[in-house]
């Protein structure tokens, strides 16, 4: 090994033991930080690469109904991008995504503000109860609402006193029925995040605002919301991640109907790829979705991270 006082460095010069140790440590630090990411990246990249390539290739070479291989070039892209089906599905996806996230935020905030004022011990029980919808499988949530929205026997029709009325029977309302079931399931998630944030708003600032005679809306806007803004951002981020993947509830409640009224991008990809086995078409739609989501994600991150500070 070394002799007293120094080692031979790689360049032949003698370096001190302390120096060697710190260099080695820095080298290891430089390498080890990649090791943390390695297993996760190995799985993610390894598994996602082949599907991405496969799906891209399918958009260029026909893969449908047992028929393989004919070169399509960009003809399929051109046909699908200008088609009405994509337009409808994309619109539905956007309406669902924006609608669910916004409503979940508003309703969650309202619930949080409201329950923040209730007696402490009861609050724990109420909060536990509200946690329940989050853990139920989306298929089951869809089933629940399908039963409730049954036009001839459902509780909804009975409650509004009009037997025969059901939002899932009308192509102008069906999408909102889906939205309702999603909002019902995930508002508690936002609610819990915001409730916890509300409880950390410093009391002295609130009292000061009260003393100043500020009305509730003013207090809300100038004191409360700025304080819970980071929580709002995170809730927004977490829910947006899921916003474009609404599928199970649609499958159970309406099968994308009436007509195409509740067909979103995910359902469209399912219908063309798995039901009809037109993998080329499904792959093309998938790539459209991938591109849109990637752009959204990076845009969102830039803005969200800036706000979080």
């Amino acid at each position, binding site marked *: 090994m070394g002799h007293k006082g120094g080692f031979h460095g790689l360049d032949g010069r003698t370096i001190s033991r302390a120096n060697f140790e710190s260099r080695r440590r820095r080298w290891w630090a430089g390498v080890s*930080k990649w090791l*943390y*990411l390695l*297993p*996760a*990246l190995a*799985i993610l990249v390894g598994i996602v690469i*082949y*599907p991405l390539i496969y*799906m891209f290739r399918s958009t260029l070479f026909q893969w449908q109904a047992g028929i393989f291989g004919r070169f399509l070039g960009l003809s399929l892209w051109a046909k699908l991008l200008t088609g009405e089906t994509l337009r409808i599905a994309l619109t539905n996806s956007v309406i669902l995504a924006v609608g669910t996230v916004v409503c979940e935020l508003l309703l969650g905030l309202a619930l949080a503000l*409201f329950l923040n*004022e*209730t007696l402490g011990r009861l609050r724990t029980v*109420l*909060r536990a*109860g*509200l*946690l*329940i*919808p*989050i*853990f*139920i*499988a989306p*298929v*089951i949530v869809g*089933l*629940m609402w399908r*039963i409730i929205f049954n036009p001839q*026997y*459902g*509780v909804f029709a009975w409650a509004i006193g009009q037997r025969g009325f059901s939002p899932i029977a009308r192509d102008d309302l069906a999408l909102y029925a889906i939205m309702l079931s999603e909002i019902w399931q995930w508002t508690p998630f936002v609610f*819990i*995040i915001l409730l*916890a*944030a509300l*409880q*950390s708003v410093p009391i002295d600032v609130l009292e000061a605002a009260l003393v100043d005679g500020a009305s509730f809306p003013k207090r809300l806007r100038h004191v409360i919301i700025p304080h*819970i*803004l*980071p929580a709002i951002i*995170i809730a927004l981020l*977490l829910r947006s*991640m899921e916003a474009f*993947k609404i599928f199970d509830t649609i499958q159970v409640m309406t099968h994308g109907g009436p007509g195409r009224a509740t067909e979103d*991008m*995910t359902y469209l*990809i399912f219908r063309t790829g*798995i039901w009809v086995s037109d*993998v080329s078409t499904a*792959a093309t*739609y*998938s790539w459209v*979705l*991938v591109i849109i*989501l990637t752009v*959204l*994600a990076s845009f969102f*991150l830039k803005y969200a*991270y800036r706000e979080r500070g």
Partner: protein
Amino acid sequence: MSKRRIILIVLTIVACVVVIAYLFPVYWLVSMSFRIQKDMFAWPPKLFTLHLTLRNYKGLVEGHGLLWYLRNSAIIAPLSVALSMVIGSVAAYGLARFRYPGKVGSQIASWILSLRMLPPVAAVLPLFLIFSRLRLVDKFYGISLAYTFFNLPFIIWLLKIYFEDVPEEVEQAALVDGANRIQIFFRITLPLSTPGIATTFILALAASWNEFLMASQLATFNTRTLPVLIASFIWDRNLQWGYATASAVISALPILIIGLFIQRYIVKGLSFGAVK
């Protein structure tokens, strides 16, 4: 009684009503699972009936192998969660603490985020082909690996946020004292972010337990899970409301029970931006 107190009581009562009304669909589902089908579709709807039966549950256990499906789910869900929590927490820690050259760190993070936003429906066939080639089809560890793949983005992102919230100064102090990263991770970071870990754990568990799409493709003879059973009753030609609701209740129970047990941690975990 002061005016304040009266308002408080009124608000509390209203809050109770709101929550009970909110949970009505859950009550409806459970109630249906204990009824005969004739009573599920009466008009006017029978909000409450004492004419209850266990036939749906009995039929599930005796005629449809409920316990077998339960066992499979009980093996796959924890296995996949354990795997993805280990791999995910390590990656999250790296992304939270280390600076990667250029903007690679944030780029990887945003790529992982966009992965999460992508619906798995799109990649069913090629995924099956990969798993088939790797001989992972119909194996418990195979399906767990598939679930890991789908849950990792979410887990990494959540844990990253939690780890970032652990004050870096505490870790730095320990570093200076000569501790290495592993010791810091286990003795400082993890304990300080326990609520976050608990939250991520239960959300990942619920996601794996309720996952249907990949299970329906990768589980064939030996590993079919509960969601596959539930889905079998919801297909239109076969829609048996009694079995569908009963299996739904059974499926929801384990996650609910665990969730209620660690409820305290979850609430703390979901308190982002709160004062420490």
